[in-house]
């Protein structure tokens, strides 16, 4: 379980996060939704320790990530997998080497164990034949999938995905969503996904948190999403014409 308490962050004189609370449970795919520039990525970066929040706590199963010593922090980091908004594959390494990388750096497994595990993860995301290609030679959707394979290779307890399906066609998006949701269920991972994809919210939103200008305005799930009385949320989800008409 991940708990965040009163996370606030200001860049210069611009307040990006104004004190966010939340809990994320194992086995749940929790979504963070909100318009562009509302601070979703910054919140995620605060949670994984890439940005230091001005105040607040991040607890990983009770361990305070921001105040523990360096060794414990490293240990927590080894329990998390992250898919970045731009995939962040190492472009000097092949697809297979990318997926193997965490195993090479952080485990003492034998060559064949590492190879098997990396192949298994590639298979999981449907890319068992792309192992020898370079990241520059594969499509955006494939990069995202390689990113997921790399994020899950160490069997993380916590999985973070920043817009896993932005810029992908609807069918590929749904496949990626389902993949994330399946893995989460299967291994009881605590998964946090940032998205502004309406399909994802309806498909995999077991728990949804709506951010607006650095504040959490609403919390619920895919069933209650369309019935809220928060005007900002309604404006956000009924942005397209079809849905607006359905609301009426």
């Amino acid at each position, binding site marked *: 379980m991940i708990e965040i308490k009163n996370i606030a962050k200001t860049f210069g004189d611009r307040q990006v996060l104004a004190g966010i609370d939340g809990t994320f449970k194992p086995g749940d795919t929790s979504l963070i939704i909100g318009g562009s520039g509302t601070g979703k990525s910054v919140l995620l*970066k605060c949670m*994984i*320790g*890439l940005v230091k929040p001005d105040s607040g706590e991040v607890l990983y199963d009770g361990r305070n990530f921001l105040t523990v010593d*360096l060794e414990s*922090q*490293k*240990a927590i*980091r*080894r329990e*998390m997998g*992250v898919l*970045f*908004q*731009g995939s*962040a*594959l*190492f*472009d000097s390494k092949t697809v297979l080497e990318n997926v193997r*990388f*965490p195993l090479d*750096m*952080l485990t003492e497994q034998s060559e064949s164990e590492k190879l098997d595990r990396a192949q298994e993860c590639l298979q999981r995301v449907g890319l068992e034949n792309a192992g020898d290609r370079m990241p520059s030679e594969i499509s955006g959707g494939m990069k995202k999938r390689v990113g997921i394979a790399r994020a899950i290779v160490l069997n993380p307890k916590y999985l973070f995905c920043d817009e896993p399906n932005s810029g992908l066609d609807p069918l590929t998006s749904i496949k990626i969503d389902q993949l994330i949701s399946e893995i989460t269920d299967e291994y009881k991972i605590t998964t946090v996904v940032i998205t502004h994809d309406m399909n994802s919210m309806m498909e995999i939103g077991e728990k949804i948190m709506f951010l607006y200008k650095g504040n959490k305005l609403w919390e619920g799930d895919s069933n209650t999403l369309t019935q809220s009385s928060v005007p900002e949320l309604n404006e956000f989800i009924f942005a397209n014409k079809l849905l607006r008409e359905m609301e009426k």
Partner: protein
Amino acid sequence: MSRLGHYFIFLGSLFRNREKMRVYLGLILNECTSIGVGSIFIVALVNTFIGAVTCVQTAYNLTNPFVPKNIIALIVRDSTILELAPTLSCIVLAGKVGSNIAGELGTMRITEQIDALEVMGINSSSYLVLPKVIASVLMFPLLVMMAGFLSILGGYIAGVLAGVISPEDYVSGLRFDYKPFGVTFALIKTVVFAFLVSTISAYQGYNVSGGALEVGAASTSAVTNSCIAIVAADFILTQILLT
């Protein structure tokens, strides 16, 4: 001034909580190939011609018939070893290796590859930068030794072909009043320059924020700052070691 402070903090981060040594070995070898082998051609070309030009120009300026011809070779030798081979090669390398390091790290920064390393709990600065620094400190001196040899050879070929000095005079000039400390001095300078070029360029690239435009700007300032650091260090080291 605060930039200088950040630079020293960055240097410190290279050595604190490193990864296992065996991780670095392969990386250092890779970097040696790309930095060392990749730079042979340009360093060789520049230095051969610099040696040739130094020889012919010195001959042109030495019109006094009482000055023995072998002085030309002596001047080529000393200017090559003391200044041209180490300093000029390192300035060439600042352009080639420095911009490469800054560009690579800058791109990794803006595409979140550095963040990806950090969240795995890997010390990204030491993982990415230390191999480059070590490879530079190992390879620059080798390149400079080659540069010195080729520069003197270039002087020989040009001098003999242009008919300004005979092969015997050139060789006797090379041997005249030779001080081995010159070579030591050149290598000390080179090691210092290698450290400066690689760390300054890495610092510029590692701390990029923004996009492609900023990566380009970081490459440029990597080269400019490295060159400034080289000439400043050159002056200081010459003061300390030769006087």
